[in-house]
């Protein structure tokens, strides 16, 4: 009966042992549930074998001036274009043009001869045309996205159409004069 009296006294102050037990039980249950949810959600993030594919190496030795190759990095196409002198000159001239996403060509190409870009339109993820001689390169001589009509220039910068940003420059290093590692 002593316990009952004690509980009554506590209840008078608006706090009971029962309230404490209830709230601490709910708190522990909620924390436990959250701790269970995270491993499940995290399992959807890239797995170790997927992360291990995060670099790609290739050679630019065989790419003729004016043409390009497409390499795959993390499942995405990467455009590597060996630009002509005229294309480089246009790109540098347009550094001062009216750009939606202003960037100089020097920032976008470590070596002016080779432009390396993630070949995914920044609008909704299609692959722009322009890597083959037969494909349209758009009004600015770079790339043209057939899905929604975005035009990119010879530096891969957005010039017209719905895309909000320039074609992304992936992180890359020249391991030698001709070998490149992306990622």
């Amino acid at each position, binding site marked *: 009966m002593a316990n009952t009296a004690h509980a009554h006294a506590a209840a008078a102050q608006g706090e009971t042992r029962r309230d404490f037990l209830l709230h601490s039980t709910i708190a522990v249950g909620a924390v436990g549930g959250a701790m269970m949810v995270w491993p*499940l959600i995290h*399992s959807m993030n890239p797995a*170790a*074998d997927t992360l291990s594919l995060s670099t790609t190496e290739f050679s630019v030795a065989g790419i003729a001036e004016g043409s390009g190759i497409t390499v795959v990095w993390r499942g995405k196409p990467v455009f590597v274009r060996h630009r002509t002198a005229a294309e480089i000159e246009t790109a540098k001239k347009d550094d001062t043009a009216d750009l939606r996403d202003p960037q100089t060509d020097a920032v976008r190409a470590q070596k002016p001869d080779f432009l390396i870009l993630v070949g995914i339109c920044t609008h909704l993820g299609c692959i722009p045309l322009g890597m083959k001689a037969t494909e349209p390169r758009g009004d600015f001589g770079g790339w043209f996205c057939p899905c929604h009509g975005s035009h990119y220039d010879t530096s891969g910068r957005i010039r017209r159409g719905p895309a909000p940003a320039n074609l992304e420059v992936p992180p890359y290093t020249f391991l030698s004069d001709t070998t490149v590692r992306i990622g």
Partner: protein
Amino acid sequence: MTEKSRLLKAWEWHEQRLPIGHWLDHSLGSKYPAPKNLNYWWNFGSLALFMLVLMIITGVFLAMNYTAHTSMAFDSVERIMRDVNNGWLIRYMHANGASFFFIVVYIHIFRGLYYGSYKPPREVLWWMGVIIYLLMMATAFMGYVLPWGQMSFWGATVITNLFSAIPGVGDAIVTLLWGGFSVDNPTLNRFFALHYLLPFVIVGVVVLHVWALHIPGSNNPLGIEAAPADKIPFFPYYYAKDAVGLGVFLVVMFAVVFWLPNAMGHPLNYEKANPLVTPPHIVPEWYYLPFYAILRAIPDKLLGVIAMFGSILILFVLPWLDRHPVRSATFRPIFKIFFWVFLANGIMLGWCGSQLAEGLPLILSRVGTFWYFFHFIVLLPLLSWVETPKPLPASISQPVLSPAMKPAE
């Protein structure tokens, strides 16, 4: 108007249009009156529901990383174990979860057997439970095939071959089940599809099970009708009680998941399926062992298969085999003894199923098989006829309020 009452009004607006809260409150909430004397054996129904949900959730995340193809299934499971973030945890929870789901359900079934929960007016409720049990066995079997290890493959071969015992059309049925002339890629593909489907069928039958439960209400340890005065709301009383049991259960289950994750599995299933080499000793998962023992006890292919399926199907007619008017074994001293004998016999059959089918295990599995059917077909009808029960209390409250009249138990 305060923020809280605005939320409450929005909720009421929604309830008038789709009374889902009302429905849940009546199904598993404060509007479901449950007898006040339920003991911890009644915890295993909500635990089974918890396990079903856990199995579906972990299973969905496993399916995101699993490949149902004979050339990739084994490796995709190893990738889950090694490369997928927390994949080992999710897979061990799912694999051991299957065992714990069966542990919970076996306790739930034996609780029903002990307290006569299958008796009128709960026969259809009992049927739904037996159907859930059968669906669980099919689901677990097909799930065990998916990792495409040696036990997966040869388990699938043996179990599907059971149907070849059917006279005349047996071989045609087995070819249909396989989608070919041996267990192969078409078999694996359909097993994966069905393994993903059946849990949701189980959810549907669980709804029927709970629906059927609400017509008469829960049975109780005394097995007598519970007067309205002897009932308390399911929420919050049994939520609180079940939460205690859930806590204890999770401690045990996760102790196994973290420290003994392969204790209930078979090491041979970490060896890739080889259709040209049968392992020297194949055993099913532990939860099938008693039935496997019954299958092997009978030296005839067709009769063995009939006995094995019959040992489960006989549960459907249990309410008409045991016609004794008193439900709870508490008041049936003779039935109570044979209940424990039956349980011990089931455990012995399980041990027999794990051994090679020769010598002592074979003799014991024959004795056990005989006793299994003798219990249902002879003993229960006989006891319904001859057993004199102890006096029943007039109400659930009576033994507590007037201890002088409390029965001996």
